[in-house]
């Protein structure tokens, strides 16, 4: 395969990995945030216990996205992570503590006080991860303060209106999916009704924020250019909108597994829609496009891209296979906490 084709394929894989990550870990982060809402002992136990067997598998997608960025786009990996130094560290600490919270919640079941603390740690950690990832992607879509000397932004410059709005979009969408997951897993009618109500109440919020974001995007970013060049691409964001509507339809039917599926697909397809608009940029410069990092100027060598592509083709199906197995075991409706048989 030609070098350019491989670079395009890797760009697509890069976007796909992020889409899978946010689609999957999205509901997991959303449920995590809900630990701050569903605080009664029983409901919190079921909420956190339902995450226990699956959070780790979901989180590996972000490690893989990071690893693949390193392997296929080392210059991007180096520039992106050193530029977003402090926000990334906060995200990492958030990921660490939310993981610790889920596990220690169960290991410390002898102490209610500690469990309450872990519930809050989970909620705050999950929120920080969801929000800051949103802010980071909002800023990447907008373009970074990047020139020949490197990156010039600060944490404050990242907190611009569009970045913040994208952060909020991530948070509310994840909350909606988290509530669907909880309603799906809830072992009794009471918890199911409560989670269902929450999902139905936050859905219009997601709709409004998403609509605002869609309207704001052409003004704040250059994402529209690719769409105007190839109008058929508009089908992708349109699909996201349809999926969001379907999410609500399935909520109405009380089929929470489908509202979760549609909601997660909404998130994944939205990420893909953003990445399509970005192409071929991966870390665009707001100052001058000449300094933008693209799929073509930040990739690994031809040999590495080709070799790693084969590796991905071989291993990704296995990963999907046993992750499906895990969800078959622990994703059944109405089973509540899975942490009873430690």
């Amino acid at each position, binding site marked *: 395969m030609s070098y350019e084709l491989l670079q395009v394929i890797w760009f697509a894989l890069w976007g796909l990995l992020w889409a899978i990550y946010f689609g999957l870990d999205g509901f997991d982060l959303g449920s995590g945030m809900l630990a701050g809402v569903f605080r009664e002992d029983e409901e919190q136990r079921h909420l956190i216990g339902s995450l*226990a*067997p*699956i959070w*780790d*598998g979901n*989180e*590996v997608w972000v*490690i*893989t996205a*990071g*690893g*693949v*960025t*390193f*392997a*296929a*786009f*080392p*210059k991007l*990996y*180096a*520039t992106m*992570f*050193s530029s977003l*130094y*402090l926000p*990334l*560290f906060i995200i*990492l*600490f958030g*990921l*660490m503590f939310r*993981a*610790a919270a889920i*596990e*220690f919640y169960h*290991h*410390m079941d002898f102490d209610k006080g500690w469990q309450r603390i872990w519930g809050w740690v989970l909620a705050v950690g999950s929120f920080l991860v969801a929000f800051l990832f949103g802010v980071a992607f909002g800023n990447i879509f907008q373009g970074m303060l990047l020139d020949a000397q*490197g990156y010039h932004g600060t944490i404050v410059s990242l907190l611009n209106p569009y970045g913040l709005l994208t952060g909020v979009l991530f948070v509310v969408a994840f909350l909606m999916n988290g509530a669907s997951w909880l309603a799906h897993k809830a072992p009794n009618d009471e918890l199911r009704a409560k989670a269902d109500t929450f999902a139905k109440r936050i859905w219009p919020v997601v709709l409004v924020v998403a609509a605002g974001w869609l309207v704001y995007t052409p003004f704040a970013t250059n994402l529209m250019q690719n769409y105007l060049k190839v109008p058929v691409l508009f089908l992708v964001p349109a699909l996201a909108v349809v999926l969001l509507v379907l999410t609500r339809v399935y909520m109405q039917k009380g089929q929470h597994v489908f509202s979760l599926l549609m909601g997660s697909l909404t998130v994944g397809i939205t990420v893909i829609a953003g990445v399509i608009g970005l192409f071929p940029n991966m870390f665009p410069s707001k100052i001058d496009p000449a300094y933008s990092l693209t799929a073509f100027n930040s990739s*690994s*060598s031809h*040999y*590495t891209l080709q*070799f*790693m592509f084969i*590796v*991905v083709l071989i*291993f*990704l199906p296995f*990963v999907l296979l*046993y*992750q499906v*197995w*895990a969800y078959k*075991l*622990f994703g059944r409706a109405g089973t509540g906490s*899975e942490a*009873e*048989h*430690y």
Partner: protein
Amino acid sequence: MGVTMLSRIQFALTVGFHFIFVPLSIGLIIFTVIMETLYVRTGDPKYKTLTKFWGRLFTINFLLGVVTGVAMEFQFGTNWSRYSEFMGDIFGSPLAVEALMAFFLESTMLGIWIFGWEKLSKKMHLLAGWLIALGTHLSAVWIIVANGFMQHPVGYVLRNNRAELVNFWEVLFNPYAWHTYVHTIFACYSVGAFFVLAVAAYHLLRKRNVEMMQEVVKYATVFAIIATLGNAITGHFNGKNVALRQPVKLAAMEAKWETQTNSGFSLIVVPDEKNERNSIEALTIPGLTSWMSYGSMDAEVLGLKDVPVNERPPVALTFWSFRIMVLLGFVMLGLAIAAWWHRRKGTLMDRTRLLKYLMWSIPLPYIATNLGWMTAEVGRQPWTVYGLITTADSVSPVALSDVIISLGLVVVFYAILVGLDVYLLVRYAKAGPEAYDERQVAVAD
């Protein structure tokens, strides 16, 4: 202190913490799934109780390995961006393969294994356990292959202002990496075996769970002997490997200042780095270093004086790390053999002092593994990639204040996590397998 030094401290801290948890995970999962294999083969519920007991301790520990590992992977980008840009074409691939091949496997299977006792057949459950073990071992392969390149770069070419991969198989089958790998894996087994022995000794000293813990000691002593003996043997070959590929590191490990043939090994050495000599050197066995390193007494061993000062690693740190590691290795081997012998004769319960030694020996393999890692990494300085890029050229162009904040947070947060982890490990280890059984009953009711 500048960005480079702070970044080094931060990296050393995060890797050091990570390397506290990972070896126990690798060692303990093997012991745990051996217990489960015994359960599946004999049907004896005692082994199931033991599997769950060690499994719980494994889980607590594994989590910390995962979370400290997350920070590791991103740190190459945050703090060592110039290194990542220069080396990513080669270094990124093993990390990506590690995530695809190992992380997914171990984390997905761990969920299935811990929470799937009631959902899977015995054999499928056991399979999930062995797949976790496989995942941890594969993970070690890829990270050590990546490190192997830093120690002994192969399969690359310098092009486009960076190192580019030209032969993946050369990188994968880098002899340096595989010498390190087997040595490291045996070291992980030592950590696991001595952890198990220490917990067993604690219970035996208090005459609690005696029957079960004697069964544990039976397997754990064999495991410990295999591990420590394996360490000695692979350590010897690893030494030859270093002698061949990194003679400067060898000179620092042995504190050799003069290049000479028939180079002797002194049992007692105190290096004096400033004056480029050893202030004490006694009980020298002539020719031993030459023979151990190159298989011949006549072989020439490089001395540090023939290496420019700016290409020498910190000598005292490398030397002492290596020396103490070897010493601890022999102490552990002795302990393992003594425990094995007395268990066979049935006199272990009477040997209170030996049991106490076993209980307190829990930090020894941890110290030894971290010293071994320091020998390898400090001994490689001033290079990040041996002969290709120095540490000072690797660091990110980030603000000093950012690194101060992140380092401060790393210290505080890691201290909290480690403190809780140790607290929980001790609590569950002390509670013992039978208390654990009662708890299961309570849950079932």
